[in-house]
Structure formats: C-alpha cells, structure tokens
C-alpha cells in the first residue's frame, strides 16, 4: 500500500513537472525559448531547488503548478527566491492560485531577507478567473504592493523572456533591473490587437513594446541580451555587486589590476569643447572585467555602471561628452535618479565623473519638463548617504555641477583634475550673456573680437581651478594619472560613513 502511494505521488509529480501540452513545448523550440524548468536548472547552483506549491490547481488536471513555479535555492552560493511563469500552461496566465503562489514567494523573500528573481513570460490575467485573482486583498494587486514594500529591502531582478502584458507589466516596472531577451521579450499595457480595437492604432508588437524599444526608447529595460542563457548569466553577474538585503554591505573581492593602463591625462583633450570618450577614462580607474553597465542603450549621454575599484563595489555616474556633448536631458536625469537610489539602498558608494555643459535648454526640453526631471536626479543624489566622491574631470557648468554631486551636496570630497572648470556657464556663453548689449554696440569686427577675447580671458581667470581650490570650493586638485590611487584610498577611508537621517517620514520626491 505504502509503495503504491509513493508510486502514485511520483507519477503525479512527474506529470506536474512536464508542464503544459506537448504542442506548446514545440512552440517554445520554434521561439528559441527554454521550458521554465530548464531555465531554473540554469539559474540555481547544480540545478537544484526547493519548490513550493507544485500541486496548485492539481485537481483541475490541465493546469500543472497553475502556470507558475515558485522556488527557493542557491545561486552563486547565496539563497534566492524565484518566481517563474510557465508559458506552456495557459500562456503563463495568472489564475487565483498562480497569484497566491507569487504572493507567498514574495513573503518568503521578505521574511528571509533574500533577493527575489522574477522569470516573466506571461499573457497576464486569466480573465475567466478574474473575481478570484484580480480585485481581492490577496489578488494580483498584492503582488505589486509587495514589490513596493520589498523595494530597497532586498534586490529584485526581472528576467523578461516573453510577454509581460497589461497589469503583469508592472512586475518589471517595480524591479531594480530588467533584463530583456531581444525579439522575445515584450512589455505593454494593451496589446497591438487591443490598441487597434480601442484607439484605432495599427502597430507591430515590436514597435509597441519590444525589448529593443524598451531598452533604447522607453527606458523600461536595463539590459538587452540575445538569448535566455545570456539573460541568466547577466543576472548572476549583477547580483555579485549586491548584498542579500539592505542591512548588509556588498562583498569585497580581491583587488585586480586596472582595466586600462593608458594614462588618463592623455585621454582628455585640451580644447574644452571637443568630445572624448568617457568609457576610456572609466577604464583607467576601475578593476579589470568589473564593468557592469545599466541602461547602456538608453540616454547614452550619461553612463551609469557598477564596477569595482581595488575590489570594492562602486557605482559610477559619468557624463559622456561623446554623445550629445554630455549634456543632461530628461531621460538622462531619470536614468541617473533610479541608479543613484539603487546604489544608495544597498550601500554601494558613488563616484561622479563630471564633464557636463549643463542641463539642456530650449523649448523642446522645457515642454518635456526638464526642470522636473532634473529635480529627480538632484533629489536622489542629494539624499544618497553612501560615500560619494565627485570628480570634476573637465567642465561642470550650471545645474550640471549640482546634479553631479557638486560641493553643496555634501560629497565626502570634491576632487578636481587640473583640466577642471566650474562655473554658472562657460566663458563664451557668460560673456555673451553679460555683455550682449556692449558687444552689439561695437561696430568694428576687430574691436568686437578683441573685446570678447579680453572679457573671456578675464572670466577664465575668475573660474581658474587654482582660484577655486584656494577658495576651498573644490577640496583637492589631483593629477589625472593619480586619480585611481586617490579613489582607492579615499573609498577605503570613507567605509565607516554613517549619516543620521533627519526624523521625518520621507521627502516629497519630485516626479
């Protein structure tokens, strides 16, 4: 009898583990997708994990695990919780028990204070079950409520393997990082079919909510990958930079040699208006193979990346003068705000590398709300209490200085390279602004040129970096080639930084 029962159990478990109808498994192959349990095999160490609620909706017969696997196990030796949709079961849609399982694995992650990874591939709500899964206390809304609660408590990672539709699209939206598989991942509130029916728009899925679109244009995606295997290895790499939860600090590794041995001095051009490649500069400062960039394809005029400097994790926010002159735009400000918050939540010190002509001006960006978006970046930077080092690489003009952790925002130190210039605006713009009328009055072009040159030179003397250092505006001037060593030393020395936050609920964030 006992034996019979265990045989029966084994048979039932096997049935559940097979997932949905074989024809949907065939479809996965055509789409270059892996079956959910193959994904979990790759994600967990030795492919081993403990599953919760495998028998959900078992008696219904056709809905193995109710279309979602929730599990706990080790990844890179660290405990993680996982939710993974099974698109072979009713297209990975959410029924009442699917939602309950997701809510429970979130609660587990919160109780254990461990990261959670969402492997998303789901058509959204199961309309036939809506009363049981949509509006109630432990309905789908609770998933998002939990995500918001967990935000900044434990790392939340989303791997988008397929669709993430309608309400389900908010799972990625509330994660710290969204890794999207090109061609297969998509995210949208209304499908193209719905858009045509409801608003009359004809648009392809790729244009509407494809992975590339989200990584380049909307900014909903952080990392575009070519395959599911790559997505999983990117998630593993990402988590190396993070502690298990907010109460811990990121793990220090052994220091490595720097990524590039080129002298930094040579990479910064003499002409302050000429572009250069900030990636090359970053490579002279960080450890080899330690660069992990967030939102590489989105707002590339600003670089946000995790790295290691002598083995310590450092978040880098750097202007990229090669793209749009390194000017800050609506999207770059948003990108920075989220990155800075993410670093601050998990004790990742921040390095700002400034070469910024300012925030963009003009009617286009004012209508886009450049001031409102810029305020988000400044608020995030200002309220970050992790060690912050600001380095003025070349120019830091206008509110650009503020946004890049300028002296007023209590960076632990504001360093200037000898090429640094700090001012409300550059010499050309300033002379034009102050002397516009006078310049207009001078008729002889030679005299006009001479006057402008004279005023520009006076202005340059006024913003000379030694003058700024002697006024204690910048704290130190550092030779470019010494910068890595200075950063290594200072980040180590600032490790014990602790800022007591003023007693209040929270700031009213500009959004």
């Amino acid at each position, binding site marked *: 009898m006992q034996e019979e029962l265990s045989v029966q159990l084994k048979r039932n478990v096997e049935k559940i583990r097979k997932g949905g109808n074989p024809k949907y498994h065939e479809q996965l192959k055509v789409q270059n997708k892996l079956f959910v349990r193959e994904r979990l095999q790759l994600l967990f160490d030795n492919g081993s994990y403990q599953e919760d609620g495998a028998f959900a909706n078992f008696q219904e017969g056709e809905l193995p695990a109710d279309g979602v696997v929730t599990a706990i196990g080790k990844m890179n030796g660290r405990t993680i919780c996982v939710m993974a949709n099974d698109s072979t079961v009713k297209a990975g849609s959410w029924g009442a028990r699917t939602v309950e399982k997701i809510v429970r694995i979130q609660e587990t992650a919160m109780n254990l204070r461990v990261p959670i990874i969402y492997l998303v591939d789901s058509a959204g709500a199961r309309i036939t079950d809506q009363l049981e899964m949509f509006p109630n206390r432990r309905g789908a809304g609770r998933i998002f409520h939990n995500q918001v609660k967990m935000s900044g408590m434990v790392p939340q990672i989303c791997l988008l393997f397929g669709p993430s539709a309608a309400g389900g699209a908010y799972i990625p939206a509330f994660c710290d990082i969204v890794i999207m598989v090109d061609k297969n991942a998509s995210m949208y509130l209304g499908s193209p079919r719905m858009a045509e029916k409801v608003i009359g728009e004809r648009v392809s899925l790729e244009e509407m909510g494809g992975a590339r679109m989200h990584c380049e244009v909307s900014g909903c995606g952080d990392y575009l990958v070519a395959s599911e295997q790559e997505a999983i290895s990117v998630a593993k790499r990402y988590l190396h930079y993070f502690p298990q939860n907010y109460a811990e600090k990121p793990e220090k590794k052994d220091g490595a040699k720097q990524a590039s041995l080129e002298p930094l001095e040579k990479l910064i051009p003499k002409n302050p*208006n000429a572009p250069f490649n900030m990636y090359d500069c970053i490579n002279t400062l960080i450890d080899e193979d330690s660069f992990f960039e967030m939102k590489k394809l989105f707002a590339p005029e600003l670089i946000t990346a995790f790295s290691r400097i002598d083995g310590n994790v450092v978040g880098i926010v750097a202007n990229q003068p090669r793209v749009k*002159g390194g*000017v800050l*735009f609506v999207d770059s400000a948003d990108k920075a705000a989220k990155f800075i918050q993410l670093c601050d939540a998990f004790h990742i010190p921040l390095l700002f590398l400034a070469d910024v002509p300012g925030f963009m001006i003009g009617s*286009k960006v004012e209508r886009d709300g450049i001031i409102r978006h810029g305020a988000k970046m400044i608020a995030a930077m200002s309220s970050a209490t992790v060690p912050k080092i600001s380095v003025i690489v070349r120019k830091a003009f206008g509110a650009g200085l503020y946004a890049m952790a300028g002296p007023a925002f209590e960076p632990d130190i504001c360093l200037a390279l000898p090429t640094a210039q700090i001012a409300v605006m550059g010499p050309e713009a300033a002379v034009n602004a102050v002397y516009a009328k006078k310049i207009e009055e001078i008729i002889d072009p030679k005299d006009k040129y001479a006057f402008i040159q004279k005023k520009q030179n006076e202005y340059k003397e006024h913003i000379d970096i030694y003058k700024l250092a002697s006024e204690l505006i910048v704290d130190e001037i550092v030779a470019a080639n010494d910068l890595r060593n200075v950063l290594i030393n200072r980040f180590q020395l600032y490790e014990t930084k602790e800022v007591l936050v003023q007693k209040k609920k929270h700031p009213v964030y500009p959004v």
Partner: protein
Amino acid sequence: MEVLSSMAGTVFQLLVSKGDTVEKGQIVIILESMKMEIPIESEHSGIVQEIYVTEGDFVNEAERLLKLV
C-alpha cells in the same frame, strides 16, 4: 534613409556634399550646441542624395539633416 539631429543646436560644419558615399558610423555633420561640438554620425551607409540644412541653421531635436540612398 535620413540622418536626424540628435539634439537642438546650430549646424556648425557640413562634412559631406551631395553625391558623397557615406559609411555607417561616419561623422557627417558637426552641430554646435550648449557651446559644445556635437558630432552627428550616420546610422546607415549610402550616398548623400539631399542636404536639408546649411551651416548656421538652427535645427531642433530629431529634425532631418540629410537624405541617403
């Protein structure tokens, strides 16, 4: 295929003429904006069929600069 302006600014230098062959990634125009030189790279290879701007023109973000065939 068109080359569009990446941001608002003034056309500082036109580096190509009608009939020129352009490679993907080649700098075709330099804008001046926010007192910075902003190189505009072509996202496609092709032959310049039309130039919509002259040096000194103001262009807004996403305005067309060149047409390639």
